[in-house]
């Protein structure tokens, strides 16, 4: 289980990395944290001829404030979600996702942008990006473009990135102040890939107990993170509580289209998605009450 041969570049600046990728449109792969790519290389499930290691490019490892939100650079490690003060202040749900994302030994190398670019259907960060309306900055040899998360994740391990583009930044706007968030996941063992997961957001009107904002994004249930608008719509205008949460949970369970595999049946995933919906909404509600 050793990688097949490849050419290895570890440029010191972004432009050089982009030029190398551009020169090898079908054969190049970016190596950042390597926690997803290296297993594929070791097992020879992926055999790119060119590896462009971006770890030595200065200025890509940051978590910084942008207006009221946070911008995360290509080389920022997943551990930063635990250690960066800004995350705790502005996007605490990203911190809560920490132990679901991976074990500490993986998070020390794995990058946030790398997880987004890899687009594993069972991953947490893509679902969080969709739930929080993040923008993903794709930098190519001539230009950079900001792609809304909703259109970024296209299929299994497939994003809107062109072969000669690098995901250089993930921008998370500050979520509405009155919204509370919860992330939950079920896996066979702690740290395993999610069988089903949910990112839920909830807001209630100031004057009266009526839900005015809801976000429900599921992962592990399809080729990409899945936002269930129908379930969100059911919540708006309702009193927050078991009746509304249950109705949303039932719709969510029906709307998702999970597959069967040896770990779980589609039926099981639907049932778990519904249960997690209720739990996540309750958890978000508790946070709202606490504030």
């Amino acid at each position, binding site marked *: 289980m050793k990688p097949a041969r490849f050419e290895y570049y570890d440029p010191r600046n972004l432009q050089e990395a982009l030029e190398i990728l551009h020169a090898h449109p079908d054969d190049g792969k970016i190596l950042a944290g390597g926690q997803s790519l290296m297993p594929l290389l070791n097992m020879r*499930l992926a055999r790119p001829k060119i590896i462009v290691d971006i770890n030595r490019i200065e200025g890509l490892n940051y978590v910084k404030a942008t207006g009221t939100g946070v911008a995360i650079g290509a080389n920022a490690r997943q551990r930063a979600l635990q250690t960066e003060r800004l995350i705790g202040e502005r996007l605490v749900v990203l911190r809560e996702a920490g132990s679901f994302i991976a074990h500490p030994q993986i998070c020390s190398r794995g990058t946030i942008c790398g997880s987004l670019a890899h687009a594993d259907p069972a991953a947490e960060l893509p679902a969080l990006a969709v739930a929080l309306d993040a923008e993903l900055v794709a930098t190519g040899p001539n230009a950079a473009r900001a792609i809304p998360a909703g259109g970024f994740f296209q299929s*299994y391990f497939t994003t809107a990135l062109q072969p000669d583009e690098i995901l250089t930044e993930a921008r998370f706007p500050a979520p509405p102040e009155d919204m509370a968030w919860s992330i939950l996941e079920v896996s066979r063992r702690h740290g395993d890939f999610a069988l089903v997961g949910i990112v839920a957001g909830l807001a209630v009107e100031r004057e009266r107990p009526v839900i005015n904002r809801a976000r429900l994004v599921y992962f592990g249930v399809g080729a990409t993170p899945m936002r269930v608008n129908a379930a969100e719509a059911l919540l708006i205008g309702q009193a927050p509580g078991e009746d509304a949460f249950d109705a949303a949970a039932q719709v969510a369970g029906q709307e998702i289209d999970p597959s069967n595999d040896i*770990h779980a049946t589609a039926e099981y995933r639907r049932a778990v998605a519904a249960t997690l919906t209720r739990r996540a909404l309750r958890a978000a509600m508790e946070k709202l009450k606490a504030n």
Partner: protein
Amino acid sequence: MKIEGRFIFPASIQPVWELLIDPQSLQACTPGCKSLSEIGNDEFEATLEIGVGPIKGTFGGKILMREKNPPFSYSLVVEGSGAVGFVRGEGKLTLEQSEDDKTAVLVAGDAQVGGLIAGVGQRLLEGVAKQMMGQFFRCLQSQLGTRLAKSAG
């Protein structure tokens, strides 16, 4: 794993049948099909390069058409193996014309996947298989569109 699907084609049963048994449309629409050559009666040798994202594998194998009952149904058997694993699928395709000059193609079958991709990629197999089947039939639908346009023009 089970393979199931239902795909609607905007034509009567005969042109849809002809499309489905045509090796050229099979080659054009089978995901990753690099080569397809007839080696016997309704038997083809094929090389497929398929994958999702960075995960790719080359499979060499056979495609067989069996139990032809024109224009109503036939069975398709696909066998392939490569460094990343092997696949064997068998499916029955049934054509049903509905009143308004539309034909539904129903797919019912089974696939076994083994080797490295099956071990490591277990959680993705069914979803990816569904997706590839969808790609295959959407491609055939557009091929039909092209054929009908040609014969009309």
